[in-house]
C-alpha cells in the first residue's frame, strides 16, 4: 500500500475519489492544516507527496525545495496539483519546481491514478540509495567522482576534494552494543556529513554511502578543511550518547578483536582522508581510491578523530 501525503489548503479529491483511491490501495493522509501535514511527512515520510500549487506564502516551493535538497528525502516523488487551471502547469520552470509529476485537480480520476502510479514506478528504477541512510550508493558515487575527473582542463575549474570516511573500531562497537545501535551510529555519521557538506559546500557538495561504515564526500578544495573539522567536532559531541555511561567515563570499551580475543578499544572515532583532485590530475576513480588507500594506513595509525588531506603537488 503506497502511503501518500497530501498537502493542500483546498480539497484536491472529491469524497468519492478519495474512497476509490483508498479502494485502489492508496493510503491517503490529509493533514489538518499545512504545518501539521508538513510535520507528519518530515517525521514519517510517505512513499509519495501530493502538494497543491500556489499555497499561501509560497509554502509549496519551500516544501518542495526542502525535500529535494534533503538527501534522505530526495527520492520521494512529488506530484504538483493545480486547483485553478490546467494551463498554469504547462509553462513552469522545472528548476523552480523540481517535481516528478503534475495534474489538474479537475482531471478525471483515471488520469490522476495513472499519474500517481507512474510517479511511484519511476522511483523504483533509481533506487541505488543505501537503505539505512538513504544516501546515494556506489553507482552514484562512481558517477560523481568520474564527473569531477573528466572536467575540461581548459576551463577554469575549482579543485575538488574527494573525501573517504570510515568509523574506527566499528566492528568491535557493533559486537559490543549490537546492530541496532551500530545502525544508529552509521545514521548519525550520515546525518552529520550531509548537514555539514550542505551547509559548507551548498550545491557543489556530495555525500555518498559506500556501505557499512564507509562514506564518501566531495567538496570544493577550499571547503575541505572546514568540513573535516566541523564533522569531527560534531561527531565528538554526539558519540558519547551512543556509549554507555560507565564506558564513556572510562574512555574505552571491551569487545572482541578480529581473532576473537577480548580486548579494550578506545571510544569509537572517525578517520577522514581527502584526495585533492585538481582538473586533469587523475584520469580514473581507481587512481583516487589508490591514493586514499595509501594515506589510510597513516591516518588509521593515529589515535582518536583524525583527518588528512593530501596536499602533494603532483
Amino acid at each position, binding site marked *: 500500500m503506497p502511503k501518500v501525503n497530501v498537502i493542500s489548503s483546498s480539497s484536491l479529491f472529491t469524497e468519492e475519489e478519495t474512497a476509490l483511491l483508498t479502494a485502489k490501495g492508496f493510503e491517503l493522509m490529509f493533514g489538518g492544516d499545512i504545518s501539521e501535514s508538513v510535520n507528519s511527512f518530515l517525521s514519517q515520510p510517505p512513499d509519495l507527496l501530493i502538494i497543491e500549487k500556489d499555497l499561501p506564502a509560497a509554502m509549496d516551493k519551500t516544501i518542495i525545495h526542502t525535500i529535494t535538497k534533503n538527501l534522505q528525502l530526495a527520492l520521494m516523488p512529488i506530484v504538483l496539483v493545480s486547483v485553478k487551471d490546467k494551463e498554469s502547469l504547462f509553462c513552469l520552470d522545472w528548476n523552480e519546481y523540481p517535481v516528478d509529476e503534475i495534474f489538474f485537480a479537475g482531471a478525471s480520476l483515471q488520469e490522476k491514478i495513472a499519474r500517481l502510479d507512474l510517479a511511484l514506478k519511476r522511483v523504483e528504477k533509481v533506487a541505488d540509495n543505501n537503505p539505512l541512510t538513504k544516501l546515494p550508493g556506489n553507482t552514484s558515487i562512481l558517477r560523481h567522482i568520474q564527473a569531477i575527473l573528466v572536467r575540461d582542463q581548459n576551463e577554469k575549474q575549482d579543485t575538488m576534494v574527494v573525501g573517504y570516511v570510515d568509523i574506527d573500531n566499528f566492528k568491535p562497537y557493533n559486537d559490543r552494543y549490537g546492530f541496532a545501535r551500530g545502525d*544508529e551510529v552509521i545514521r548519525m555519521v550520515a546525518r552529520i556529513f550531509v548537514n555539514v557538506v*550542505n551547509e559548507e559546500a551548498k550545491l557543489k557538495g556530495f555525500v555518498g554511502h559506500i556501505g557499512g561504515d564507509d562514506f564518501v564526500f566531495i567538496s570544493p578544495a577550499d571547503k575541505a578543511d572546514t568540513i573535516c573539522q566541523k564533522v569531527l567536532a560534531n561527531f565528538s559531541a554526539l558519540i558519547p*550518547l551512543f556509549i554507555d555511561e560507565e564506558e564513556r567515563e572510562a574512555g574505552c570499551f571491551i569487545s572482541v578483536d578480529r581473532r576473537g580475543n577480548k580486548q579494550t578499544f578506545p571510544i569509537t572515532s572517525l578517520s577522514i582522508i581527502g584526495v585533492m583532485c585538481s582538473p586533469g590530475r587523475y584520469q580514473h576513480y581507481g587512481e583516487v581510491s589508490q591514493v586514499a588507500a595509501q594515506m589510510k594506513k597513516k591516518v588509521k595509525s593515529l589515535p582518536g578523530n583524525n583527518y588528512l588531506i593530501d596536499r602533494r603537488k603532483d
Partner: protein
Amino acid sequence: MTDELTEAKRHQIKERLKNIQSLPTIPPIVAKLNKMVEDEDMTATRLGVVIERDQVLTSKLLKMVNSSFFGFPQRISTVSNALVLLGFNVIKTLIVTSSIFEVMQASDVGLWEHSLGCALISSSIARKKGIKNPEEISTAGLIHDLGKVVVRAELPEDFQQLIQYAEKNNVSISEAEQKLLGIMHPEIGAWLAKQWNLPPRLVIPIRFHHNPEQAPEFKDVCAIIHFSNILIRGLGFGYAGDPWVPPLEHSAWEKIKLGKNEMKELLDELELKLLELIDFTSDFTKNSKKEA
C-alpha cells in the same frame, strides 16, 4: 466532579494528545526566526540560539530528531545535538511551518518567561553541582511546563474554566486541574513528550517536577527542576498561571543542598543572568506590541 466523570475526562484528554502534531507558540519568536531563515548566510547554530529560547520550538525540534524517520529514538535531549543531526534545511522548514497563537495573551508570554527562567536556574544549579551535561538539565527546565501549553492550545474552554476556578477559589492552577480535569499538567506534558519519543531523561523531570521524590529515575534532575520552578516563581519572573509558589519537597532540597555561601553565589549569579533574560524577553514583547 465525580471520579467517573474525571476518569472520562482523563481518557478524553489522552485521546486528544494522540493527535497533537504540533503546538503553537508566541508569534514574536517565530517572526524573528522567519526573518533569520531569509538570510543566505544563516547557519543552523545561529537558529539554535533562538530556538532554545522557546519551550514549544525546542520540543518540536526534539520530537523531529527522536522520530523513527531520523532514527535516533529517545536518544537526543539537547538543541545543539538536534541541530547537528537535522541540518539547516529541515530546521528551516520546521520554522516556516510552525504555528503561532492567533491571539497572544499576557499569560502566554508569562508562561514563556517562566519556562526560560526555570531553564536558566536549572542550568546554573547543574553547573554549580558539577552535573554532567548541564544543557540537558536546562532543556528539561525549559520544557517542564509543556503540559500547560497543551491545555492552553488544545483545551481552550477547559483552560478558561481552570483560570476562573483558580481565581475564584484562591487555589493553584495545579489544584484546579486536578479538580476539573482529573489530571495535572505534569502528567499531560509527560504523556505528550513520551508520545513524541523524547528521552526518559526529559520525560521523567516533566512528569515529576512537582513531586521529585516519586520519580523512578533521574531523581537528581527532577529535584533541580523542582527547585528551579519554585525559585523562579519566588523571584517573580514570568507567570506560570497563578500567583502561588508551590511547596518545596524536603528530599529534593536534600539532593541539591546548597550551602549558605553557595546559595548566595547562585542568587548573585542569577541576578545578572536574569537581567540579561529580561532584556531579551522584553525586546520581543515590546516589538510584538508595536507590530500589533
